[in-house]
């Protein structure tokens, strides 16, 4: 029983008597529910609640100051970013429209021309289209950077192969606090294959670190990689939770082995079922 099934009626005097405990959060669930119910309907504004509630806030001033660990900020920001991503996905779903225009269908067919298992579905074809649109392959070709274009095409093909496996998830990674975008697939065994482009080249010991953020909102490092002048990269890791809704994200770290993300998030996306 929640305790809310039998909310008892209180008189105004009873509410005043418990006002101190109410604003201090010192009521059990039944009494708190009873007071809330009374305040919602009572003609008396019960000014004592505001009068006493303000004083409670003053207690915070008496607490000895303790600095939080540095990692806490990264946890909170990553969880908020994941929440934002989920909200965006939900909004897009609610509107029933694709988040990205489906351009160049014939190019999509060409991008997905590698032999694949017959389990390829509509979502895979969309992924191929998005790979072309988001990874900007034609732009690279127009820039006559054929080696970069081929490199990214191979990386995307590897992601599409993984995405075609039964039970796989796909994620479109879009630029957040940086310039990188790409595509990733997580297979049923929890192996991720990622293809990225347009990343700023790394220098020195700096690496791009990949993260997975599950339902608990805690970012878990997957490993790092460096990026050359071409700005493209492929990445593989294992041991991910293969559940829809996980967030894949990239951050730029000063060196390998980061245990908490350094903000901003460069690129991120939510993994969802490939169909």
């Amino acid at each position, binding site marked *: 029983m929640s305790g809310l099934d039998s909310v008892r009626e209180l008189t105004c005097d009873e509410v005043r008597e418990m006002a*101190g405990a109410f604003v201090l959060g010192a009521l059990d669930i039944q009494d708190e529910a009873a007071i809330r119910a009374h305040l919602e309907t009572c003609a008396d504004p019960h000014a004592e609640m505001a009068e006493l*509630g303000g004083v409670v806030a003053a207690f915070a001033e008496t607490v000895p100051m303790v600095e*939080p660990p540095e990692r806490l900020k990264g946890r909170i920001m990553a969880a908020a970013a994941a929440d934002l991503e989920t909200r965006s996905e939900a909004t897009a779903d609610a509107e029933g429209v694709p988040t990205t225009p489906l351009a160049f269908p014939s190019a999509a067919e060409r991008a997905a021309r590698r032999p694949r298992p017959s389990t390829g579905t509509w979502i895979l074809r969309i992924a191929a289209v998005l790979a072309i649109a988001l990874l900007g392959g034609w732009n690279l070709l127009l820039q006559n950077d054929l080696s970069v274009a081929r490199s990214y095409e191979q990386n995307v093909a590897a992601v599409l192969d993984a995405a075609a496996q039964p039970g796989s998830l796909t994620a479109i990674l879009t630029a957040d606090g940086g310039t990188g975008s790409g595509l990733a697939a997580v297979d049923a065994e929890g192996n991720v294959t990622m293809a990225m482009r347009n990343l700023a080249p790394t220098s020195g010991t700096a690496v791009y670190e990949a993260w997975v953020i599950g339902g608990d909102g805690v970012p878990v490092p997957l490993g790092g990689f460096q990026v050359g002048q071409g700005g493209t990269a492929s990445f593989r890791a294992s041991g991910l939770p293969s559940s829809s809704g996980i967030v894949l994200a990239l951050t730029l770290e000063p060196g390998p082995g980061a245990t908490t993300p350094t903000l901003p998030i460069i690129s991120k996306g939510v993994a969802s079922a490939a169909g």
Partner: protein
Amino acid sequence: MDEADRAALIRIADGELAALEELYDRYKTMAYSIAYRITNDATLAEDVVQDAFLGAWRNAARYVAGRGSVKTWLLSIVHHRAIDAVRRRRPTTELPEVETAMPAALTLPDVWAEVSASLDAETVRSALETLSDVQREALELAYFGGLTQGEIAERTGAPLGTVKSRMRLGLLSMRRTLEMGST
């Protein structure tokens, strides 16, 4: 400061992560200190602060400017989450199945805003010292210990009605002392 806080909250309601970062940087120490003081557990305190800031992130649009400062609103969320966390460690305490909205009574009325803005630790400690020992004990067990009025009655051996009075009169007395100190 509160004007900047309110501007940040509007940006948070629009989904701007940088605004959340701004608010966190401003109140991280106080938030963590409250959570740590109540839970006495560094790991749990981290969880509480994360939970509270995410609560603020998700509910920024529900903040009502006329009722008090963003700081008070935020820190009261931290306090409630910390108390919930402490009560979860006590298996006999029943918790709500779903999160309920913050009581409007926990936000500051305008008349109190000027007083609260000038409060510092020393002023509040001095006001606490003016209370009787039993009033101060009841308030501290509730605010920092997360005890319900029934648990306080059990702990102190005082009748429940007496505990209710101690909390109500103790808060009233503190308010008067703080108001006098600010004039």
